[in-house]
């Protein structure tokens, strides 16, 4: 029950997960590494993200109707398969507290400096627990179908409203200051956040029409890439690259620059809508995956029971980081970029694809081949 989603919902889930988080959290590292060529970094990041999307959708197609926890043991054997699942569980279990903490940090820095962070976090935990419990992936899918367009419209609104502040000279000189190495270094952080389509391996099995999922996923990643690229160019053109690498949230600072017709000023509330919606979708999806995945992994009948155990754990974990650098920078630079991206997003899906195709071999080769020309 409650566990069927449509292709359109997958599209919006992935788009909203990618968009808000990437825009707010990962542009600073690219700006620091590549300065005015950060947009080239984003193009590189987009290619990596697209590769991830192609990989995971190909994997999901080999095992229709099954999710990662079903097919990892099939591909790698029982014990290695369990290890692989644990690697993914680590990713899911750590990302939730970190995103929760980033959420509360941002709310504290930009909006509510006095509110204790415990309450900001608790609020979000309750919200995602409720969404997951009451709606399951289907509810989350419908939420993102509703929130996704709002996020998209708000981002585009911010970009348009800034069009009178654009100074394209800030983009120049292209390439001369950074070089390939810096551009690539700058692409890692956004690539790792645009690579959230890796979770498609989990929710592909909930698709009501599994064959259609691939196109929706790839479109979602493509559009997210495009908008992040556009936003990066505009951020560079509006803020310049002398100050923006020092800002925690250049996207927010950019919205403060909006001033139209003399009476539209101080648009600060708009990016908050984008950010909170995106955080909510992302957390809810991960929370569902964690609950469902853990239950399935430990062979517990009702995954909903897990919510009651996991929610408090997530709440406590979110309080562990001592400061904003630990939560935002260290996790990104020490786990998400060097481990989660190469292993969870590229390496393991590639292995799953290669070994899965070989193992399936003769039996279902015809079926898999039939799908590939869609």
């Amino acid at each position, binding site marked *: 029950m409650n566990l069927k989603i449509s292709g359109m919902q997958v599209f919006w889930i992935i788009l909203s997960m990618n968009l808000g988080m990437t825009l707010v959290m990962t542009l600073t590292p690219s700006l620091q590494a590549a300065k005015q060529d950060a947009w080239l970094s984003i193009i590189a990041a987009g290619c990596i993200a697209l590769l991830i999307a192609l990989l995971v959708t190909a994997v999901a197609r080999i095992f229709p109707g099954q999710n990662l926890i079903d097919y990892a043991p099939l591909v790698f054997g029982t014990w290695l398969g369990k290890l692989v699942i644990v690697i993914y569980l680590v990713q899911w279990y750590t990302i939730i507290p970190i995103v929760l903490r980033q959420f509360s940090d941002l709310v504290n820095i930009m909006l509510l400096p006095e509110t204790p962070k415990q309450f900001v976090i608790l609020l979000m935990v309750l919200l995602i627990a409720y969404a997951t419990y009451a709606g399951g992936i289907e509810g989350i899918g419908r939420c993102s179908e509703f929130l996704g367009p709002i996020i998209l419209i708000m981002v585009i609104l911010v970009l348009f409203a800034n069009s009178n502040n654009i100074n394209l000279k800030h983009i*120049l000189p292209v390439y001369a200051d950074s070089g390939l190495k810096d551009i690539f270094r700058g692409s890692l952080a956004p690539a790792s956040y645009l690579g959230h389509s890796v979770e498609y391996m989990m929710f592909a099995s909930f698709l009501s029409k599994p064959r259609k999922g691939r196109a929706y996923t790839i479109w979602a990643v493509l559009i997210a890439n495009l908008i992040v690229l556009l936003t990066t160019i505009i951020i560079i053109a509006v803020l310049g690259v002398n100050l923006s690498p020092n800002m925690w949230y250049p996207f927010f600072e950019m919205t*403060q620059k909006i*001033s139209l017709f003399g009476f539209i000023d101080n648009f600060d509330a708009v990016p908050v809508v984008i950010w909170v919606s995106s955080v909510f979708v992302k957390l809810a999806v991960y929370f569902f995956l964690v609950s469902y995945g853990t239950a399935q992994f430990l062979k517990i009948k009702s995954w909903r029971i897990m919510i009651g155990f996991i929610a408090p754990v997530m709440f406590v974990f979110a309080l562990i980081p001592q400061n904003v650098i630990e939560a935002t920078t260290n996790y990104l630079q020490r786990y998400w970029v060097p481990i989660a991206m190469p292993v969870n997003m590229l390496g393991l899906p590639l292995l799953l694809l290669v070994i899965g195709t070989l193992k399936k071999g003769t039996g279902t080769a015809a079926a898999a081949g039939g799908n590939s020309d869609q």
Partner: protein
Amino acid sequence: MNMSRFVKTCRCMLLLIILCMTTGCWDRREMDDLALIMGSGIDLTDSGLIEVSYQIALPTGIPSAVKSGGSQKQVVVISAKGNDLQEALGRIQQQMSRYVYFGHREVFLIGENYARQGLNQVQDLFTRFPETRYNSYVLTAYGATAKEILSTPYPMELIPALAISKIQSSRQSFSVKFDEFLEAFASPGTSPVTAAIRIIHKGTDKESVAIDRAAVYLGNKLSGFTQPAELELLRWWIGDPYRLSFTIQAEPEDKDYKGTISVKSSESSVHVHTRIVDDHPEAKVIFHTVVKVVSNNTRLNLDNEKNRKNIEQQFSRQLQGRFEELLTHVQKGMKSDIFGMGEEIHIEHPYSWKKIRGSWAEIFPAMPVQVEVEFQIEQLGKTHGRAYLEK
């Protein structure tokens, strides 16, 4: 049955809890708990202390549209001194009954003495502080302290800081916003510049403020001020070149005619071309403008093609001369690259820039800059010739 009722109750409770927390009551601020800072300023006193001043709007003192002319005061200026910025800010809070709120701050003033001593503390405080609005204006006080400027009444507006902000946003004034100012500080190829404000009619009851100069910075220190006559040129070069007006002496003055012609521009632009010759940068700046004549106090009839060409040439030559004076003043005298020449070289010759950026402060004052003015008369106003009898 019971179970489902229990679940329902739980859900309702959950929703209630969420609802209660979304109000964000920890950070609620009532209007009467806020001190709305309209303008703030920073000074260095003679004894070496930092003095911070706020101009605070008093909402109760502002008359509504119906009742005009309130007798109460509309603003109050509060200031405090300290050994550093934080100490001064702390002292100011000690005399405030309300929470200081910067969301409406329109202008930030830097006292001349403080500016000459260096601005690092200000930059850091204002970039870190979440309530900083990048759209507020930065001005440097000329021949006065920021506190004096903030305390000066302005006859046309209820809140003097709003008057300053309105002058600045009128497009006919030279204005620099906070982010542009900080950006110039952070950029290796541009020096910061702000508008400079001074008190006029000082000591009389007509006291007011005027913005007729620009304050030029070198590094983080104030290097000097431009002349009022140079402000229009600066607007053309680095500001908003909207309706620039120029007057020249086209003919020698005689008893009937002053011999002057005045114009207002309808469109203006600047093109900077840089070259690297033997590792030494050179620049050529071409100013282009299309104008309409707003007054003609000469014997020349501008309907005549030859006269018009003559006037255009005179304008080009004289404006070129004025630009060269401005350059000498700023480039040789104050040694400050407020024109962003370094940034132009960075864009046009990125690889050469890498070699010279470290010593740009020494290279710039010696850099040859050639100025050219392209001047074109487009309109003559409402009349052909003059409307009075020729003598």
